[in-house]
């Protein structure tokens, strides 16, 4: 078995374990904010594992990786904008 196949198998096992962990965590008595942070952290980890290993992003050049990650701060900026806007009650 070559090193690539070993990596793919271990990644699949890790993803499965993280999914099981998510299902256990959502039912636990954890304060809401802590639960959101914990579940989103696991989700981002899983997404990175899929992108880096299965989509072979770790083998791509730094330029391509940077270009692909560029929209993320933009999306976070919009998220902050939406959250800020929600506190207002707009009437026309």
């Amino acid at each position, binding site marked *: 078995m070559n090193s690539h196949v070993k990596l793919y198998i271990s990644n699949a096992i890790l993803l499965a374990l993280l999914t099981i962990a998510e299902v256990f965590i959502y039912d636990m008595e954890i304060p809401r904010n802590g639960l959101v942070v914990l579940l989103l952290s696991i989700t981002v980890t899983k997404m990175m594992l899929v992108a880096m290993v299965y989509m072979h992003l770790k083998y791509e*050049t730094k330029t391509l990786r940077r270009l692909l990650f560029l929209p993320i701060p933009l*999306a976070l900026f919009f998220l902050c904008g939406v959250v800020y806007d*929600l506190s207002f009650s707009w009437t026309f």
Partner: protein
Amino acid sequence: MEHTITMNKSFGDATTGKLGMWLFLVMDALTFGAILLGAAALRYASESWPEAGTILNIPLTAANTFLLICTSFTMVMSLQALREGKEKRFIKFLQLTIIGGLVFLFIQIFEYYHFVSGSSELGLALSTNGLNGNQLLPSTDIYGAVFYTTTTFHGLHVLSGVIYLSVIMFQGMKGTYSAANYDRVEIAALFWHFVDLIWILVFTIIYLL
């Protein structure tokens, strides 16, 4: 026809086709981002929102998530087999990926059927969460609209992926691809992994939170 046109050194050996797919995926990710951001905003603005696990079936969907992760694994194994020149193995893993995608869709349709046909148990779960009726429909409050919009948009991606991979499989059976010509398979694989990656986010935001 081989796709061997490469860009400048900044992108390594990535072909134009591969860069095109990455560009498409970034745009698609922003579309999903907008939908999920909208869902989060609607939820925040809503007076009440059903508790996780009271209406949606978490164990079934977790199993479905696991299945989609398995198809990502079979897809990458399929590509690896092709790179090593093992064409039969490539087709076998590709078939497993397609079957996995179809089972995922079947489970999603089963879930929809359960919600649309309705039941007294579902009605009880809905009323506990301040929602009316015995069915969960797109018109059942903002919650139903958010659930169906997000999962259907993703489901259509899975369906597109299944069709896309089926075309690749039939071409592969005719001997179109080899260890020296796998670019189009790699591009299709990128799309499939993206569908898995987005589901990971949808599962957390729509089902678990």
